[in-house]
């Protein structure tokens, strides 16, 4: 370990480049956020192609312990393991949880210079691991542990504390489960019909889709919430890591897009048909404001989420749902019902809103290319069930044109 920890002189200048591995998204997001804020100090996340100076893993993450013991990282850079309590981990520098910036700094100092091992290191005689707790402040008569901790932590540590609940508020908010009443035999017939109509619209004949520009049976997704959401995500992707989040400010709702948590939060509940009709109606561009947040302003977004968000959805589930609510069984203008399409892969239906016949439609569209018309005839299902599925799959980017 000492040999591995002997970093070169040039690495002593600037932050150590680390790879974050074997940890939850929450821990990863928290560390990345902290490192970004303190980029000139201790650690920085290694970019693709960089040779990392260390690997940080979560010792309490399932599989990490076994991976360490099996020597998975033995031949690589030094290992920093974040762990609760006193544990044994060969060939790893332990940083006690809750993670404090001072403890990370101490671990970095130890990696840079193994001789600078802190005297407070907790180490069981039988262990080869080095625990690097935060340096202990001088004793004070204070008894309130929160006040005490707050007093002795430097500013960066308090910032880190701010980040943890921030990420937690959105990620711990239980995502809205897909409503199964469109399928569930246990639902009353009335409720089931209402849900199917909300998702698939009224019954339509296949011939209704013959005219690709008929406004009664066609719509423009770009003018609905799913289109505005797609633009927001495109903006995020185009800006790479510069942008951290987006808010869609619409007349009836604010939609908070938090890609680092794979979440979308809404300021209004979407449980009622009246709300759904208002939110998923057509909106002109001047009715929708797109507010973007970068690393410096992302806390503003997080503050709004904590203050206003009432429902949370996984990003993919929200896009699917928004597409269904917006289309309500209509097809986009210009889509040719005679053009065969095929699914790239199955939609992840355990996390998506299901509509009648969706499993059979997915099974057939992953098996072979088919037009909407031939799918209706082949499965003997209602056209609106196929067009609703088409809307969701299109928003998820799963459809591709193929010769039949």
């Amino acid at each position, binding site marked *: 370990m000492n040999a591995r920890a002997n970093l070169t002189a040039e690495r002593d200048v600037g932050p150590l480049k680390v790879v974050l591995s*074997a*940890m*939850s*998204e929450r821990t*990863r997001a928290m560390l990345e956020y902290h490192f970004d804020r303190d980029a000139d100090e201790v650690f920085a996340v290694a970019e693709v192609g960089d040779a990392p100076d260390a690997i940080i893993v979560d010792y309490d*993450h*399932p*599989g990490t312990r076994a*991976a360490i013991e099996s020597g*998975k990282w033995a031949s690589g850079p030094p290992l920093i393991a974040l762990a609760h309590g006193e544990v044994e981990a060969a060939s790893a520098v332990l940083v006690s949880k809750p993670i404090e910036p001072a403890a990370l700094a101490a671990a970095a100092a130890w990696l840079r210079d193994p001789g600078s091992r802190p005297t407070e290191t907790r180490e069981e005689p039988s262990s080869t691991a080095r625990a690097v707790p935060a340096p202990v402040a001088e004793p004070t008569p204070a008894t309130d542990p929160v006040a005490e901790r707050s007093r002795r932590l430097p500013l960066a540590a308090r910032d880190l504390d701010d980040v943890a609940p921030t990420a937690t508020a959105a990620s711990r908010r239980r995502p809205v489960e897909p409503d*199964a009443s469109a399928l569930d*035999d246990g639902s009353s017939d009335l409720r089931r019909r209402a849900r199917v109509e909300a998702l698939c619209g009224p019954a339509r004949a296949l011939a209704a889709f013959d005219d690709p520009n008929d406004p009664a049976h066609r719509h423009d997704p770009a003018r609905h919430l799913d289109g505005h959401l797609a633009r927001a995500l495109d903006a995020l992707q185009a800006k790479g890591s510069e942008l951290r989040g987006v808010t869609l400010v619409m007349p009836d709702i604010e939609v908070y897009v938090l890609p680092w948590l*794979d979440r979308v939060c809404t300021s209004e509940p979407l449980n009622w048909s009246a709300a759904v009709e208002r939110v998923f109606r057509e909106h002109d561009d001047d009715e929708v404001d797109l507010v973007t947040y970068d690393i410096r302003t992302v806390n503003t977004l997080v503050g709004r989420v904590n203050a206003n968000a009432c429902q949370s959805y996984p990003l993919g589930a929200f896009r699917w749902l928004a597409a269904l609510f917006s289309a309500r069984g209509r097809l986009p203008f210009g889509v040719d019902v005679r053009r065969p399409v095929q699914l790239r*892969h*199955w939609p*992840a*239906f*355990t*996390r998506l809103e*299901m509509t009648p016949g969706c*499993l*059979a439609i*997915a*099974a*057939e569209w*992953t*098996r*072979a290319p088919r037009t909407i018309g031939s799918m209706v005839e*082949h*499965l003997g299902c209602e056209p609106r069930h196929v067009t609703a599925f088409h809307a969701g799959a299109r928003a998820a980017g799963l459809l591709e044109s193929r010769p039949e």
Partner: protein
Amino acid sequence: MNRSAESPEPLPEPLPERVPEPLPERVPERVMKVLVAGPVGVGKTTAVKSASDVPILTTETTPTDDTLLLKPSTTVALDFGVARLDDVRVVHLYGTPGQKRFDFMWEILRDGSAGVVILVDASDPDAIEGLGPYLETYAALLEQRRVALGVTRLEVDAKDGLAPFRSHLGRIGASVPVFEVDPRSRADVLVLIRALLATTDVDLMS
């Protein structure tokens, strides 16, 4: 008394022949055998338990090997449960043992099955490599698209989501359902089973 002069009493009219009412037509149940396979500790027994409408039959015992480090009990032969999907379809669920040394049970249980649900733990760094033995054992079912993949513990490690599993199956030409699954959720497990059977059904229709 001259009896012969008297006219005989007319016999009562015979009762009309009673035609039994036809019994309501009963659609025969369609019973299917579905396997639940996957590595040790991935949640197979939990999944069978969640989906089953009846108390499940298990063959769990205390492990005598490294499995003890992972969990206090392990399946050594099979788990069995019954799930009714609707008025017609009933699924007999057979959970296989996860340990490689019991792989003979994987093959024994395979006979006559309509398909196999393979569960895999997303938080296992070697999850994709760990799928190999199962895809090999159930290669014939995979060829007929009678396989569905349930990815568990994505909430623990959701970095790449389902994508690596989809690409792995895509590379071997298998377009089968790949869903995130919480084995404790009856709804999740049943959706996975329904998707598996939907694939089988549309293939039979074609």
